[in-house]
């Protein structure tokens, strides 16, 4: 069964919509800068919650930033789609923060004032943030949330495809969102994998990641869906897989077994050989462990024919549960624009692999299939393969 991508929307540190994001990728302009407030390198979306609420014309309510970022990206992807009675439509979002951005604010305030004051603390659960996105789009029915740490966004996309393939849905809007949260800034800093300078994916000098925030959504449809909506396919989602590294809760195995399995199974699902891949959008967080493990896994899959690859996290920062979704949108754009996307801040190849990522935005004769990797805590490894419509 074919799964078509018929809409994309994205908001990140490098743009408030898909076109702005692509322009920044072309121009090689990073969205990461030093935050004076947090004294960290961050990929912030330059809009306050109040500004987003005004842009969306929402009532002044207690919205999680997860929902607000999602609504901007989801509405862009959703476009002029309507809810029709005879088409089964669903929404699957991914988040690791959920309503925790509000929870931490109220909890810290309550602790400071020594009063419990927990009456506001009821939007923490991820599901509620997704319900508000669904309400904003007018979707009811299958409304789901995936939370598998940094692979969540890719898993939400995969889940949507599987629900279409399993004849549960005809059309589904899938993606992910995470705002910056003090919780994660403190967490990743405590792990000593936070680069105090710009992150340098796949570079020998890499010291760690920079956090970012954002959201991205894609509309997936079956043939039956398209026959009703009349939407034009942008590309196809051809392959997907989730496998587990089963090595360590936070670290990737030396040979990247989980990543290797996910890529091999996704190629198998897409029914293509590895030579067909024109570009890999790597997970490439910029941590010592991830980039080495992922490089070895890529080498094991592609042997001596590693296609052009890059990590776009030097542009956006690591947007956690949104990353897989944002990068999926970039993969769609790569196919549409026939472009290989650049990897920022790269200078020296890793000693162990000598692999050199693409460092400039480069147009190619043909970008037929694009592979996207997303990995998360808990050994969670997901691979998606997008392809041109034939």
């Amino acid at each position, binding site marked *: 069964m074919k799964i078509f991508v018929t809409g994309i929307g994205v908001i990140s540190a490098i743009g408030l919509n898909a076109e702005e994001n692509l322009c920044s990728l072309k121009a090689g302009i990073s969205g990461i800068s030093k935050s004076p407030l947090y004294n960290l390198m961050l990929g912030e979306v330059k809009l306050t919650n109040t500004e987003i609420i005004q842009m969306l014309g929402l009532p002044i309510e207690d919205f999680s930033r997860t929902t607000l970022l999602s609504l901007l990206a989801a509405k862009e992807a959703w476009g002029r789609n309507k809810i029709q009675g005879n088409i089964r439509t669903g929404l699957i979002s991914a988040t690791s923060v959920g309503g925790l951005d509000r929870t931490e604010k109220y909890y810290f305030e309550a602790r400071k004032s020594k009063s419990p004051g927990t009456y506001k603390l009821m939007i923490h659960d991820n599901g509620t943030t997704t319900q508000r996105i669904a309400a904003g789009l007018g979707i009811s029915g299958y409304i789901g949330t995936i939370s598998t740490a940094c692979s969540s966004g890719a898993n939400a996309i995969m889940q949507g495809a599987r629900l279409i393939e399993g004849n549960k849905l005809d059309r589904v809007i899938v993606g992910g969102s995470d705002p910056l949260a003090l919780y994660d800034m403190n*967490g990743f800093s405590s792990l000593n994998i936070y680069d105090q300078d710009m992150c340098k994916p796949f570079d020998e000098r890499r010291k760690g990641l920079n956090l970012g925030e954002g959201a991205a959504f894609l509309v997936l449809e079956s043939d039956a869906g398209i026959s009703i909506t009349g939407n034009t396919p942008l590309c196809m989602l051809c392959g997907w897989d989730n496998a587990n590294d089963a090595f360590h809760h936070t670290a990737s195995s030396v040979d990247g077994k989980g990543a290797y399995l996910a890529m091999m199974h996704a190629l198998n699902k897409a029914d293509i050989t590895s030579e067909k891949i024109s570009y890999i959008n790597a997970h490439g967080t910029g941590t010592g462990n991830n980039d080495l493990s992922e490089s070895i896994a890529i080498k094991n899959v592609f042997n001596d024919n590693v296609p052009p690859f890059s990590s776009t996290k030097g542009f956006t920062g690591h947007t956690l549960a949104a990353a897989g979704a944002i990068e999926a949108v970039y993969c769609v754009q790569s196919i549409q624009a026939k472009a290989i996307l650049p990897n920022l801040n790269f200078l020296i190849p890793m000693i162990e692999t000598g692999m050199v990522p693409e460092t400039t935005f480069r147009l190619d004769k043909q970008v037929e299939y694009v592979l996207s990797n997303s990995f998360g805590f808990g050994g969670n490894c997901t691979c998606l393969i997008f392809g041109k419509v034939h």
Partner: protein
Amino acid sequence: MYITASSTISHHPTFRKKGFSLHLSELKPGSELITPDYSTFIPAMDRRRMSEVLKMSIACSLDCLMQAGQPQPDAIIVGTSMGCAVHTKIFLDKIISANQGPLAPTFFVVSTHNTIAGQLSLLLKNHGYNMTHTQNSLSFEQGLIDAMLCIKSGSNHILVGGADEFEETIYNMKERLNNENIHITSGASFFVVSNEAGKTVPVKLVDVESFGLIDDSSLLIKGFMDSNNVSAREIDLVLYCNSDQNKKAEWQMIFGHGKMIDYQKIAGTYFTNSAFAMNYAVDILSYKNHPAFAGEIHRVLVCNNLLPENLGLVLLDNKID
């Protein structure tokens, strides 16, 4: 597809007690969770760092895999609304007490929602599909749908469960459910869903649906039965949970004189208590003639309306084809 193993930790003696459905009662104030001796399942070193939800989930999962005689499931799927909520709260406290000074990552790394599924994969050295669904009161049903999709695409045995732990400082469940008269607690129920029946009485997982932002629960229940070619009279037992007492009367209209049991009063309130209900149903269905019911029970419907805007439906039977 079939339920070939099931395991529950609750306020009742459910764990490793086949036939537990005979001994259930409504929760009394002050009632507490009955937990097994975790040392049987988890080494002491690992146990110390584990939250309740993780320990419960591991014990139930290992119990299930032993029952099914399947040490390596093809996939591990967990439904949990709040994940490791207690560790989330602890790490928030650590951030405050560290006051921008050095901070240990211990509680951060084990507070992600997929800690349960991830730890299970690590423990089993399982490289298969590993997923975590977090759609508040529908987390478990979505996990089950995922398991059914795995079976449909060729898998043989799926470990799937629902688990949540009590945490009231950072999340006000009573406020969220708009109900002061509920017993908020923790619980875990895991299952092995297989493409073929097990050795014991076959309990079939007929269908599962998850509906969000619903208008009319009765209409959806009727539609669900229609799509499965089952009439209301053919449902021998309804295990239900809802936030609005008027709903019971409305649903009773659908099922006529059919028996209905409010499982929330037995399991207590947590977002994945429908997983408890499913094991309750499995236990009842594994009797040919359950002593607690007049007449044979062949078909059970679990109706989860814990949040008024959500409806989860699970249909099980023990019919032999």
